[in-house]
């Protein structure tokens, strides 16, 4: 059961697709081998909240039948994992929260439906920070995920289950969501590729909302090529998402092989200042030098307001979260407190019991910044600063094609190190949040190691320029081997 001598779990989607096509193995055999591997590895990693063994085997059998009938979809029989923020009909969908511990989604998210229609086989639902609020996976009601590079370390978050599972070779691809860096930061911390598309590029329908003007679905893979393959299926207009944008989806996979000769790469001074671990900075500078050796040119770009991106985010995101999470009332779905005497007590206790500390903190922050007397000073002010930051990006993209820098200020940190100080935790996303505020696409690509832990190169491009990001990442991976590095215990 091997193709090209390499174990199935070690192969990319591109390699697995070729093996399936040639009949080297079946979709059922592939799903069985990965499910067995998950069964062994996940007791330590805790990357999954639910493993969908029966559903996966049934989907794999269908994929084999479809192939035999000449009706194979673009992802036919390829195994994936969904972050547990995506609604999956008939399967528990928890969003990492006690609030939804008993919630079985009555419908599929558009992303889930599209990937299923393409023939993908879902192995399970990945662990995550509660309601995607966190940068370490430690806010999950289901316990922290462990980083396969070192089990004492965090895999990042909020899509930490997805990043850990892909890094540990439990699946070649996993969906994620990114509100302030929740795909790109965990990808950086686990040595995987993570892309957050343009706001509105991928449907948010059925993706449990955190901050609706910032949330975007994307994917974590090991290669840019696989990210292109996945995004090509996931992207596109959806009339069920009122913020979905009707913009043609290019052939991402077809475009990645073009050269990056002449690509203009912008460097932002603040991305390399005191907040950055100097050794991470070296890896990122080496990666930028590699891009130059491939024909790219670098330009320094000025972003005078970028330093305000984290405080702006921590007004806008909690404000939207406080509004979105008001739907959890203990009545129609979700956790319900027992023996409440009246309706007010039912609401307050169901929410008090169902939400964890970080989620409560963000709901309260949001309630405060939206409350009478404070709205102008905080929410309105933040939306104005957000405009200034978006304008900084707009001006930068008049002169450059991508902005390159570090994804995260440090490599992975120890579980427990940052969880008691919200501000320290929030600053993990200092380099990624700007793209969310401006609605821009961003990607993190593995670019080396510091103290045996992976480092990510972060690239941001103009609206709808995912193609440029994927091409740049693909070309970089054609000339480097960082993405082939595998944690020792998962080889």
């Amino acid at each position: 059961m091997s193709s090209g001598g390499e174990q199935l779990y070690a192969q990319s989607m591109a390699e697995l697709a070729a093996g399936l096509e040639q009949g080297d193995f079946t979709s059922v055999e592939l799903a069985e081998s990965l499910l067995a591997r998950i069964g062994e590895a996940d007791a330590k990693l805790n990357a999954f909240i639910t493993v969908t063994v029966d559903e996966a085997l049934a989907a794999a059998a269908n994929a084999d039948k479809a192939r035999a009938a000449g009706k194979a979809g673009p992802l036919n029989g390829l195994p994936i994992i969904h972050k547990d923020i995506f609604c999956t009909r008939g399967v528990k969908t928890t969003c990492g929260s006690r609030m939804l511990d008993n919630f079985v989604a009555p419908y599929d998210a558009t992303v889930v439906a599209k990937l299923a229609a393409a023939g993908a086989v879902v192995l399970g639902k990945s662990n995550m920070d509660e309601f995607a609020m966190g940068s370490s996976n430690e806010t999950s009601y289901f316990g922290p995920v462990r980083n396969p590079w070192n089990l004492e370390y965090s895999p990042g978050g909020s899509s930490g289950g997805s990043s850990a599972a892909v890094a540990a070779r439990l699946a070649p691809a996993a969906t994620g969501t990114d509100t302030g860096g929740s795909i790109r930061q965990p990808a950086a911390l686990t040595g995987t590729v993570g892309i957050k598309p343009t706001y509105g590029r991928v449907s948010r329908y059925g993706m449990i909302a955190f901050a609706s003007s910032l949330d975007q679905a994307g994917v974590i893979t090991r290669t840019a090529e696989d990210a292109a393959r996945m995004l090509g299926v996931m992207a596109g207009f959806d009339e069920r998402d009122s913020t979905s944008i009707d913009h043609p989806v290019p052939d991402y996979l077809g475009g990645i092989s073009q050269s990056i000769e002449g690509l203009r790469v912008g460097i932002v001074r603040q991305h390399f200042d005191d907040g950055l671990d100097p050794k991470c900075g070296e890896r990122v500078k080496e990666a930028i030098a590699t891009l130059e050796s491939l024909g790219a040119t670098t330009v320094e770009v000025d972003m005078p307001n970028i330093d305000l991106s984290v405080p702006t985010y921590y007004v806008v995101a909690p404000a939207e979260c406080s509004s979105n999470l008001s739907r959890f009332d203990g009545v129609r779905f979700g956790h319900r407190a027992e023996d409440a005497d009246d309706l007010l007590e039912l609401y307050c206790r169901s929410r008090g019991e169902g939400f964890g500390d970080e989620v409560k903190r963000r709901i309260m922050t949001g309630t405060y910044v939206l409350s009478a007397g404070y709205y102008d000073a905080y929410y309105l002010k933040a939306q104005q600063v957000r405009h200034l930051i978006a304008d900084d990006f707009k001006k930068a993209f008049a002169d450059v094609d991508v902005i390159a820098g570090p994804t995260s200020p440090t490599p992975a940190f120890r579980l427990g190190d940052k969880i008691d100080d919200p501000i320290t935790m929030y600053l993990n996303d200092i380099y990624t949040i700007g793209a969310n505020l401006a609605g821009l696409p961003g990607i993190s690509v593995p670019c080396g190691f510091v103290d045996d832990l992976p480092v990510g190169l972060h690239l941001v491009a103009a609206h709808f320029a995912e193609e440029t990001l994927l091409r740049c990442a693909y070309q970089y991976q054609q000339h480097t081997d960082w993405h082939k590095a595998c944690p020792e215990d998962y080889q």
Partner: protein
Amino acid sequence: MSLSKDQVKRIAMLARLELTEAEYAESVKKLNSIVDFVDQLSQADTRDVVPMAHPLHATQRLRADDVTETDDRDYFQKNAATVSDGLYLVPKVIE
């Protein structure tokens, strides 16, 4: 500025969150650190800057007012803790 425990209690009530005494003590401390942090925004010169509501400045799209969903009430209600005759039950609201 600094948030008092009474202010935090009022915020928790507005947000419909019941907190324990220990959670209040922790919340006062951490919410104050967050508020101090976001206070940096006051330094920004935002005269004549339009607040940004949408990252791509798109306007809200409206769909045609047609029935497009099927009635799945029974299936949806499986997620509710208490239902009766197709209705969701809550504690008595009218004496």
